[in-house]
C-alpha cells in the first residue's frame, strides 16, 4: 500500500474521524466525459487519490500496473460493460480482493442485484448524493481493511 502525505479536505468535517491521514487510491471507471469530470472532482476533493479509466478495457490494463484500495465502476459502458469488467476483476487472483462499488444511472432494484451478482460489493445510483456515496465508499474500504488484518 502506497503511503501518501497527510491530506485534509477543503472543508474539514465536524467529525474528526473522517479526516484521512493516508490517501486511499480509487480507480474510477466511467465512459461519460462529464460524469467522469464531476464525480472524480468530488472524490478528489473528499480526500481520495483518483485514477481515471474511460472503459472496462482500460480499467483492466490499469489494475495490472497500479494498486488500488477501491474501484468505482460505471455499469453501462461500450465494448466492455461494468458487469463484465467486475466479473473479470473478481476472477483474477491479483484483483479479486479489491472492493468494487457499482455506480450506475440504472437505478432500479434489479440493476443493483445484477451488479452485486457480478461481484460488486455495493451499488449506488447516479446522480450521486455525495454523503451517501462517501458512506458506501468508506464502508467498503473498512470491510476490506478488516478482511486483510
Amino acid at each position: 500500500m502506497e503511503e501518501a502525505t497527510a491530506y485534509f479536505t477543503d472543508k474539514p468535517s465536524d467529525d474528526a474521524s473522517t479526516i484521512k491521514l493516508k490517501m486511499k487510491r480509487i480507480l474510477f471507471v466511467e465512459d461519460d466525459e462529464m460524469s467522469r469530470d464531476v464525480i472524480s472532482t468530488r472524490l478528489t476533493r473528499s480526500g481520495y487519490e483518483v485514477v481515471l479509466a474511460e472503459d472496462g478495457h482500460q480499467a483492466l490494463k490499469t489494475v495490472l500496473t497500479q494498486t488500488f484500495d477501491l474501484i468505482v465502476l460505471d455499469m453501462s459502458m461500450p465494448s466492455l460493460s461494468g458487469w463484465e469488467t467486475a466479473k473479470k476483476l473478481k476472477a483474477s487472483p491479483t484483483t479479486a480482493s479489491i472492493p468494487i462499488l457499482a455506480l450506475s444511472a440504472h437505478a432500479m432494484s434489479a440493476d443493483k442485484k445484477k451488479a452485486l451478482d457480478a461481484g460488486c460489493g455495493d451499488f449506488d445510483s447516479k446522480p450521486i448524493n455525495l454523503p451517501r456515496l462517501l458512506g458506501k465508499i468508506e464502508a467498503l474500504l473498512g470491510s476490506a481493511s478488516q478482511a486483510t488484518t
Partner: protein
Amino acid sequence: MLELPCFGVQVSADTIGRDVARLFEENPSLPGVIVMDAKGFCGMVARNQLFQRLGRLFGIEIYSTRPITAFLDTLKTSPLLMPAETTIQNAAILCLARPVEYVYDPFVVTMKNEPPRLVDFLALILRQTELLTAAQIEAHTQRAAAVSASNAKSDFLANMSHELRTPLTAIIGYAEILIEDVKAGQLSESVRRLEGIAKSGQHLLEMINGILDLAKIEARKMDIFLTTFSLPEMITEVIGIVQPLMKKNDNQFSVTADNAIREMHSDEAKLRQCLTNLIGNAAKFTSRGSIGLDIKKEIRPDGGWVIFEVSDTGIGMSETQLTRLFESFYQADSSISRRFGGTGLGLSLSKQFCEMLGGELSVRSVENQGTTFVMKVPVRSTQKPESLPASVQE
C-alpha cells in the same frame, strides 16, 4: 340457437312405435321426432327414450304397435321448449337442469309462424364447450398482450430514468462543485463547469420534449395540422437548418429534387422535423463523407407520393442494430448519445410522424459503408379521426 343443426322431422299422432323406431334406424343422426295431431304440435319423442322403452322386458310386444302418443305421457319434463333467440349458454343451463334420465333428450326450438324443430343435446354441449374454450383463449391472448404492453412500458420507463439521470449527474454535480468553488473563491474553472450545466440542461430539455411528443402520440393527442405549402420552400428551410451541421464532421451535402412537385398538403412542421432529424443523424454518424437528400415523385393508384431519400457514407449499422433502430432510446450502444449527441427518441418519433401522415419510414444500411433512410409521404395527406401510427396500435 339456429346456428346448431336443427331437425324438423314430423310424425302424425297415430304413427305406431315400430314405424318411428324404423325411422330412427334409417336416420342415425336424428335425435328425435316432432309429433303432430289435428290441432298441431303435440309433443316430441326422443330417440333414446323410445329405444329404452322398446328395449324393456316385453317392451316390443307392448309398445311396438301402440301409437307414438303413448310415449309422450311418460316424458313429463320433455319436451323442453325454447324460443330460437335463447343463447347457447342459457340453453345448456336449462338442459342440464333436467332430471338425469332426460338430460340426453333433444329439445324443441320454437319460432313464430314456423314449425318447431329439434336440437340434439350433445350438439348443444359441444358448441357450448367450443364457446367456452374460445373465450378462454381470447382471455389468455388479451392477458398476454397486456403483460407484453406492460413490459414494454416498464422498459421504456427504465430507459427514460437512465437517460434523464445521466445529464442530471452533470448538472447537480457541477452545481455542487461550483458552490464549493464560490465559497472558496476558486473560480478558475467556473465557465467550463457552467457550460457543462447549460449543455446538459439543453440535452435534458430535448429529451423531455421528445418524451412528451411520444406520450401525446400514445394518448392520441398529437394533433396534425394539414396545410397546403410549397415543397421547394420547405426544403430550402431544411437546408438552412442542416447546413451548419455539415461543417462539424467535414461532410459534403447535396440535394437533388424532382421539380414536378411544387405543392404538398400535409403537416409541414412534422415533415420538417423528420427531415432535419434524418439529415442530422446522417451528419452525426458520417465524417469526411457525403450526405445526400434526394426528392422524387411516385405515382400510385391512390395518388401522388413524395419520396425523400436521405443517404450517407457513414459508419452504417449491423443487421441487429437495424432491427431495433426505431425503438425509443435505442441507440446501438448507450454511449452513442454521449459520443454523438441526440436523445435516442428522434427516429422513433420520425417514424410515428410519418405514419400519422399516412406515410412510411424505412431504412437500409451496410456497416462501414453508409445508411439510407427512405421516407414516403402522400402528396395530399388526409386527416383520419383516431389517427394513430401503426407501430403504436399493438
